[in-house]
């Protein structure tokens, strides 16, 4: 946990830096490197442990998420979001959800984000278009709210009912494989599965109709 708290601190520092010098990714890289070194020095034993790697991934994830929000250029936001998605896929791997990890990459990185890229290219938005942020009060309010929400979440997770630090240990065989998930999807969650398919159809048609130049 110290690791994570350290990460958070770095994130805050980075955010400050970022807000002082806008549109400069160099400090970001510098901060990242510094943190990496600091972590390496922090504990050698953790290097081989999952703790370290997940901490690192989490760091990258948060960084990329922040970049998504902060960066003025939509395309760059897209790229960072893709990075974030990969991090989460890795998390899935750590959580014994191999299938989900791959699916994550295929669906999000492979399909959805491509869609985003496509749209950004299609509209070919200029940077200044992206630069415009929301009104001052709302912006500050949003940040305050975010802080409040994060605080609440921390509080909630910190004292979860029993065993806040529960560690189930290694999963059973076949946990999270395509076989298991598929079995569930086609037996217990059959209806939800079908419903999802219908939802997709509807979304597809809706998208086509919306994006059509003129309906005739």
């Amino acid at each position: 946990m110290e690791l994570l708290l350290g990460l958070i601190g770095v994130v805050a520092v980075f955010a400050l830096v970022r807000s002082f010098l806008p549109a400069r990714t160099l400090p970001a890289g510098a901060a990242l490197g510094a943190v990496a070194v600091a972590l390496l020095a922090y504990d050698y034993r953790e290097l081989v442990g999952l703790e370290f790697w997940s901490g690192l991934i989490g760091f990258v994830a948060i960084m990329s998420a922040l970049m998504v929000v902060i960066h003025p250029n939509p395309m760059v936001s897209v790229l960072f979001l893709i990075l974030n998605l990969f991090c989460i896929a890795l998390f899935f791997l750590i959580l014994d959800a191999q299938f989900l990890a791959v699916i994550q990459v295929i669906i999000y990185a492979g399909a959805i984000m491509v869609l985003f890229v496509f749209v950004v290219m299609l509209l070919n938005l200029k940077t200044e278009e992206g630069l415009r942020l929301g009104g001052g009060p709302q912006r500050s309010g949003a940040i305050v709210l975010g802080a409040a929400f994060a605080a609440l979440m921390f509080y909630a997770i910190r004292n979860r009912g029993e065993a806040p630090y529960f560690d189930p240990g290694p999963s059973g065989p076949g946990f999270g494989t395509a076989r298991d998930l598929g079995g569930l999807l086609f037996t217990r969650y059959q209806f939800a599965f079908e419903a999802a398919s219908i939802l997709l159809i509807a979304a597809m048609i809706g998208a086509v109709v919306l994006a059509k130049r003129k309906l005739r």
Partner: protein
Amino acid sequence: MDPAIVRVLVESAVKIALFFFVMLTAVAYMTWVERRVSAWIQDRRGPNRVGPLGLLQPLADGIKFLFKEEVTPPHVYLPVYLLAPMLIFVPALVTFSVVPIGPSLGLLGHRIALQIADVDNGVLIVLAFSSMGVYGVALAGWSSNNKYSLMGGLRSSAQLISYELAMGIAIVGVLMATGSLRLSDVVAHQIEHGWNALYQLPGFVIFLTAAFAETNRMPFDLPEAETELVAGYHTEYSGMRFSMFYMAEYANMITASALAVTLYLGGYHVPGLARLGLPETAAALVQVLAFCVKVAFFLFVYVWVRWTVPRFRYDQLMNLGWKGLLPIGLAHILWVSFLVLKGWV
């Protein structure tokens, strides 16, 4: 650290190094092959000056690329501009890592699988990374603020998205037949029940077509249709960065061929090899060789097609993808499920 981990690390490190070397060499010589073959098709001579049969030509090209000046236009969006070539090159290589090029063979008292990572979900990983290829093209097109590039990028992303679908649908047939996402299982299954291509011909054809489109090869090379858009998405690239795209194209071709072989032509399987009763190592080498031959055949087909078939128009491309391959693929899935239901495969 405990020895098991060390062993795994060392083993995969060696594999990766080998694989990387082989892959890059193959790519390099693919360029030579293409030139020679196209020359042969067009009744020319092709490169024959550098070394015997011009075999050193790729080396010369490499050196040339390395020493060329990297022109960076002022109007590009630099980070992405720099990122794009890697994004297009990396997936091509990574995809190969799950392809089994031969059976596992005993070496130094260890069983070593001739495959970098034998993960289940292998097929899915293939799909995932092949879909990554889009970004390279799209970003290259977008970042180099140039309408030709943008057009190329747009076209390619649209094209790749459409044909990934077809490819996935085609692969579903294989998966249903195999009942596993593990590529080694796919090969094993084919060794048992015969090659998929035999009774999944539609799927095979769809897969090939999609593969051509995925690799932006003729007749699907609209993203870089030089007669319409100067050079498509890599108009603004030069020197080593350009060579990245260049190599990526061939890497993709190789990967796609390998996949086609693995999925449909029984991978490293050589019919009737078992009856010869060769020693294991020898048999393995033969099978690897067989694999390489199959791949080589597909590469030849790539080149062959390129110099035979004219380029599609954009709308024809889209129509083929959405109205042609997709329905056929679905029908094919029905057909395969019928087979599976009957227990014939």
